C-alpha cells in the first residue's frame, strides 16, 4: 500500500507552530522570516500513510461496489438481458428462494468443506515441496522437473482420470481441488525460497544455524510475501477446480447448483452462484491479506528504510 510513484504526497511541514524564536531560531535576524527565494519545502516522496482500519475496508469495498454498480446499470439498461445475466433484483429473489428451501445453506457448507479441505491439502503439499526444491539442490533435482511436468498437465483434462482413481465420490473432488492448488503454491514457494537473500544465508551458515533453523528464521520470513501471493492464487484456483469437481456426479454444492442452473436456464440462480464464488474469493483474499500483515510485522515499520 505504499505509494511509490505518486507525486501528490502532502507537504512535509506539518504544523507552523507559534514559535518562540529565541535561541533555537536561525541566528541571522534577516532570515527569521522564511526566505522565499527559490527554496522549497522538501516533500517526503516515499512514505507510508496508514489508513484507518475503517478507511482501508472502505477502500477495498470500492472495487466490488463498482462492479456491482456496472452490473446493475447493464441489466437496468438492457445491455445484459436476463437470459444472460439476471438483474440484482432477480438475483436477490433467487438467493432468498434458495436460502429458504435450504439448498443454498447446504451447498455453501458442502462446497466450503470441499474447497477448504482441498486447499489445505494442496497448499501444504505445494509449500512443503516448494520449500524443499527451493532450498536444497537434491530437492530441486528430484522434485522440480517432475512438478513442472505435472503442473503442465491441465487438471481439467484429468477429471476423467480422477474419477477412475478416486471414485466418483468426495475423495475425487477433494483430490482435484488439492491438485489444482498445489502448483501455484509450489511455483511461488520454490521461487520465493530461491530468491532468499544470499547475504543472510551466508550469515546463517557462519553463525552455525541448523538447516531447520535457517529455513525457519531466514528462508521462511524472506519468502513470506511470495508464499502469501501463492496462497492467494491457490485460493482462486481452488474455486475454479471446485466448479469442475462439482460437475462430477455431485449431489450438492455450489458447482452442482450452478450446473443445474445452467441445465434449466436459470440465469438468476447462475448469477447467485457466480456472486457467491466472487464473495468467497474476496473474503479469502481479505483474510490472507490480514494474515500477511500479522505475519510480517517487520515490513510495516513506519519510515523504515534500512
Amino acid at each position: 500500500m505504499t505509494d511509490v510513484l505518486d507525486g501528490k504526497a502532502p507537504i512535509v511541514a506539518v504544523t507552523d507552530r507559534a514559535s518562540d524564536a529565541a535561541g533555537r531560531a536561525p541566528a541571522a535576524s534577516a532570515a527569521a522570516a522564511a526566505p522565499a527565494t527559490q527554496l522549497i519545502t522538501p516533500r517526503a516522496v516515499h512514505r507510508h500513510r496508514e489508513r484507518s482500519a475503517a478507511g482501508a475496508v472502505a477502500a477495498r469495498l470500492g472495487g466490488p461496489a463498482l462492479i456491482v454498480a456496472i452490473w446493475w446499470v447493464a441489466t437496468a439498461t438492457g445491455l445484459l438481458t436476463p437470459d444472460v445475466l439476471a438483474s440484482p433484483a432477480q438475483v436477490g429473489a433467487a438467493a432468498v428462494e434458495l436460502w429458504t428451501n435450504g439448498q443454498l445453506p447446504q451447498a455453501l457448507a458442502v462446497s466450503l468443506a470441499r474447497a477448504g479441505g482441498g486447499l489445505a491439502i494442496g497448499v501444504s503439499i505445494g509449500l512443503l515441496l516448494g520449500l524443499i526444491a527451493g532450498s536444497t539442490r537434491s530437492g530441486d533435482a528430484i522434485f522440480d522437473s517432475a512438478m513442472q511436468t505435472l503442473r503442465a498437465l491441465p487438471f481439467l483434462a484429468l477429471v476423467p482420470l480422477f474419477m477412475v482413481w478416486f471414485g466418483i465420490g468426495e475423495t475425487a473432488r477433494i483430490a482435484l481441488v488439492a491438485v489444482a492448488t498445489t502448483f501455484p503454491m509450489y511455483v511461488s514457494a520454490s521461487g520465493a525460497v530461491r530468491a532468499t537473500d544470499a547475504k543472510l544465508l551466508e550469515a546463517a551458515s557462519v553463525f552455525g544455524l541448523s538447516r531447520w533453523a535457517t529455513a525457519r528464521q531466514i528462508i521462511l520470513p524472506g519468502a513470506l510475501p511470495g508464499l502469501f501471493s501463492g496462497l492467494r492464487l491457490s485460493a482462486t484456483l481452488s474455486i475454479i477446480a471446485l466448479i469442475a469437481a462439482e460437475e462430477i456426479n455431485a449431489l450438492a454444492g455450489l458447482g452442482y447448483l450452478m450446473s443445474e442452473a445452467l441445465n434449466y436456464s436459470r440465469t438468476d440462480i447462475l448469477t447467485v452462484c457466480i456472486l457467491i464464488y466472487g464473495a468467497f474469493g474476496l473474503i479469502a483474499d481479505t483474510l490472507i491479506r490480514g494474515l500477511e500483515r500479522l505475519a510480517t510485522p517487520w515490513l510495516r515499520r513506519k519510515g523504515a528504510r534500512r
Partner: protein
Amino acid sequence: MTAVVTDSANTATADTDRGNTDRARPDTAKTDRAKPAVWLRDVDKRFGDRVILDRVGLQISRGEFVALLGASGSGKTTLLRMLAGLDSADAGQLLVPRARTVVFQEPRLLPAQRVLANVTIGMRGRDVVDTARKALTEVGLAAHERAWPVTLSGGEAQRVALARALVRSPELLLLDEPFAALDALTRLKMQDLVADLCVRHGPAVLLVTHDVDEALRLADRIIVLRDGHFIRDHRGIRAGDGPTRADLLDALGVHAAG
C-alpha cells in the same frame, strides 16, 4: 591531486584536458553566500517516545561547507533525510533548494545496472557518459565501469556512490559518512575530489562524519548534534579561528584521548 569532474551541463569543458580546473580560480558561485541554502525553524522529529530533533533551527548559506558531528544514533542521518525530502518532520518548517544530491550512508547502487549506468542514473544529455567515465576514473574505478554492483568491494561501492554525486551539480550536497569504508590514501583522494567539487560549483554541503580530523580539514563550520539539540556551532574553521581537535572530541564525550 587534481580533479576534473565536470557536470553534465558544462558541455564546453567536457572534452578539455585533465587539470584545467584550478582550485584557486575565483569562484562565482560564492558571491551570493549570504543567501541561505538551507533554512530550518522549530523542527521536531520523534520516533515513538524518542525525541530525535527537539525544535531545532538551522541556516546554511550558499557555498558553505558544514560538518555535522554526533554520536551514533543521535539523529544525523535523520536530519539529512529530512533535508533530502525522504523523511517528514513532525513539526516546524524546512526550506531547501530544488537541486539536491545525497550520498547515503550505504552505497545504494542499483543492482540491475552496471557501474557506469549507476553513475549516470537520472541524467540526460550527450556528454553524460563521458562525464561519468571521468568521474569513475577520478575515484579510481575506470576498470570497473562494466562491473555489476554486486561484485564490488565495500570501498569500491562507496566510491561509485561518490562518483554518482560528483557528476551532478547540486545546490545542496548531503553526504552521510561518505568516506567511512575507505583506506587512508583513497580517503584523502576522495576528500580532495569533494573539496574540488565545492570550489567549482559552490554547493552548500552538509557532511556527516565521525572523523574529527576530516571535519576540521574540509569544513567551514562544524555542528555537533546531541540529545536533539545542536550543542556546538563553530564557524570560520578554515579561517583558523575554529576549535581544536580536543575541543571537538570533548564535545563528543571523548575526554581521555587527544
